[in-house]
């Protein structure tokens, strides 16, 4: 559990919220308790104001909401399924486990929900160019996809090391018409790609929208990115009520920046009977220093525009994160999650690389579904949650929903290397050793 915050503790107010009838689902920002805000250069404030204004008007415009609904249905393939995972559930204490199948969306993850929404907003603002950051390439590919669909120029910033390791994702983005810019400064990771995208935005803000990939950053990004992912939680809630006739006992999601998680949590935040869990990347283990367990071990600070939990040293310098999952490998986290942690509404726990990879293989073999390694953190967490629920008795009456945020096709080389499945002389083994994702 998170260490007590230094200022503005919101401990205990969750009961007040849930019993007092105040909704947690639609927190508008800019602040979530003492988190969030706009810790940004003045040069970008006008652009954030313009974005906030455009977003507020779009939400209230039936034409915009109809456009989103149409793209979700006829382009992304929504609603995504809610699939019961019966054989997998046997390993989770025998509770019933349902998977929210964001892996079935176009481009293979939840990311498409946010990029379509933001690309539409970019067009509304009359911007002709979008920029994005990407770690492994998932958000970059999704951004390039939305830009191609809507006729926008797209530039993606990606750490130089990631470009080398993810050469095929670079090719994907280029096939979709985007330009990929390798970032060679700082630690050459996702956070430096965000820094470089911000520098581009400052210089080109007149014609450019920064299509941030997660529910972090300066206001209005956290609340806006959540809005575009709320469909996940709303569908899941309706689907479980239709299939089982009641709400689940627990909802599980993985957390990097936290966009898929806040999307599914949204559906259940106001249901006091539903326990909610976010699973962070524990890397080699939280006691090794090589992890991305931001809420578990970080301290509040400001990075990339928001106050939130942050992996930082005693000088306030950002510490590099580590995870087998590129999508969770980020030293910050969205501010709404920091707030939900402090008030105790959501429990955040770390899952190690090894626990995640065990869950990855288990889902492959029990359900015939290859999950993203990111989502495998949620699956590993669900096994623990299921076993805890089962220990309370009546296991088969308990229900757990897991947000299966993405498919694992991109992770096959990493997994094959992890499980030693490749002939050591094969080309694929050479690729896997370099961390390539196919």
């Amino acid at each position, binding site marked *: 559990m998170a260490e007590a915050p230094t200022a503005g503790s919101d401990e205990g107010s969750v009961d007040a919220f849930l019993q007092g009838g105040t909704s947690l689902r639609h927190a508008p920002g800019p602040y979530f308790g003492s988190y969030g*805000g706009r810790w*940004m*250069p003045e*040069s970008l*404030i006008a652009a954030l104001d313009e974005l906030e204004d455009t977003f507020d008007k779009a939400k209230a415009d039936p034409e915009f909401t109809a456009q989103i609904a149409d793209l979700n249905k006829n382009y992304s393939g929504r609603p995504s399924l809610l699939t019961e995972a019966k054989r997998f559930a046997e390993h989770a204490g025998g509770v019933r486990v349902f998977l929210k199948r964001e892996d079935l969306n176009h481009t293979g993850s939840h990311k498409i929900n946010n990029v379509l929404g933001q690309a539409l907003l970019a067009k509304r603002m009359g911007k002709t160019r979008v920029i994005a950051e990407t770690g492994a390439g998932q958000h970059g590919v999704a951004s390039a996809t939305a830009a191609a669909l809507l006729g926008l120029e797209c530039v993606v910033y990606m750490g130089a090391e990631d470009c080398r390791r993810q050469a095929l994702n670079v090719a994907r983005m280029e096939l979709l018409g985007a330009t990929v810019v390798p970032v060679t400064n700082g630690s050459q990771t996702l956070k430096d790609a965000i820094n470089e995208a911000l*520098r581009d935005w400052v210089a080109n803000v007149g014609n450019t929208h920064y299509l941030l990939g997660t529910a972090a950053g300066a206001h209005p990004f956290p609340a806006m990115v959540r809005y575009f992912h709320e469909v996940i939680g709303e569908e899941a809630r309706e689907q479980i009520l239709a299939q089982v006739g009641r709400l689940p006992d627990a909802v599980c999601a993985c957390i990097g920046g936290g966009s898929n998680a806040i999307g599914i949590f949204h559906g259940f935040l106001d249901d006091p009977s539903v326990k909610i869990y976010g699973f962070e990347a524990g890397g080699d283990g939280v006691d090794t220093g090589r992890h991305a367990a931001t809420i578990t071990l970080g301290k509040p600070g400001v990075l*990339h525009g928001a106050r939130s939990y942050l992996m*930082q040293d005693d000088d*306030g310098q*950002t510490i590099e994160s580590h995870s087998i999952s590129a999508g969770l490998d980020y030293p910050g986290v969205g501010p709404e999650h920091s707030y939900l942690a402090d008030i105790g509404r959501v429990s955040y726990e770390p899952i190690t690389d090894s626990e995640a990879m065990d869950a990855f293989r288990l889902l492959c073999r029990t359900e015939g579904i290859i999950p993203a390694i990111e989502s495998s953190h949620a699956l590993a967490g669900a096994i623990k949650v299921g076993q805890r629920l089962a220990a309370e008795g009546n296991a088969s009456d308990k229900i757990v929903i897991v947000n299966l945020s993405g498919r694992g096709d991109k992770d096959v080389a990493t997994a094959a290397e992890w499980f030693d499945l490749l002939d050591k002389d094969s080309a694929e083994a050479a690729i896997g050793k370099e961390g390539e994702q196919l």
Partner: protein
Amino acid sequence: MTSKSAIAIDKARAEGRAALIGYLPAGFPSVEDTIAAGIALARNGADLIEVGIPYSDPVMDGPVIQAATTEALAKGFSVRQVFDVVAGITAETDAAVLVMTYWNPVLRMGVDEFSRRLAEAGGAGLITPDLIPDEAAEWMEASDKYGLDRVFLVAPSSSPERMRRTVEASRGFVYAVSIMGVTGARTSVSTAAQGVVAAAKEAGAERVCVGLGVSNADQVAEIAAYADGVIVGTALVSAIRDGGVDAVASLTKDLSAGLTRK
């Protein structure tokens, strides 16, 4: 409240010229060099000195300053050493010494504690590139308590309303960003700068200094015609990188030749 920055700028004004403000990143190439270069800046015509704290995620900085601060961090620079730099320069010169810092290192130490130590070291105040007045409640309080200047930034994109609020929240001077972009030498200073200065004055600013992209005496002269001070960063960082303290001294001498209003 007396403001060390205002006194330094007013002294230049009384001499019929704009003030020169020079930036150096602390710990590049070493803490001792930063102190020596700061003293050289002051002795060769700089009225104010801006000491930067190297930070892991400097989103407002271009490649030259990024490379310098990354190197300082790699060599083990720690935030508390900035107070040694400030004390080292103020002990030897009359220049007003400000610290330029991204906000998280200040938050981590504690805003009050950081402010107390800065004041103790003889510092004039803080320049805060990623802190806007909207988020600055704690800093407003601490800067009042310790008598420190609050230098916020205004940009070509700032609305009149934001310009007014930022000017109101500032003490010492207002930092006018000359261009929509990051730090780095540019061949010409954007024409936007003069508009930003005019807007800040319109909003009530008594002292407005212009930074970003200024690297030579001609540009200094151009800006000195309409602003109260001229801020030079990247060019000085290149100088200390390539020619050490002597190069800083001679560049400062060149730059200061542009200050006198024609």
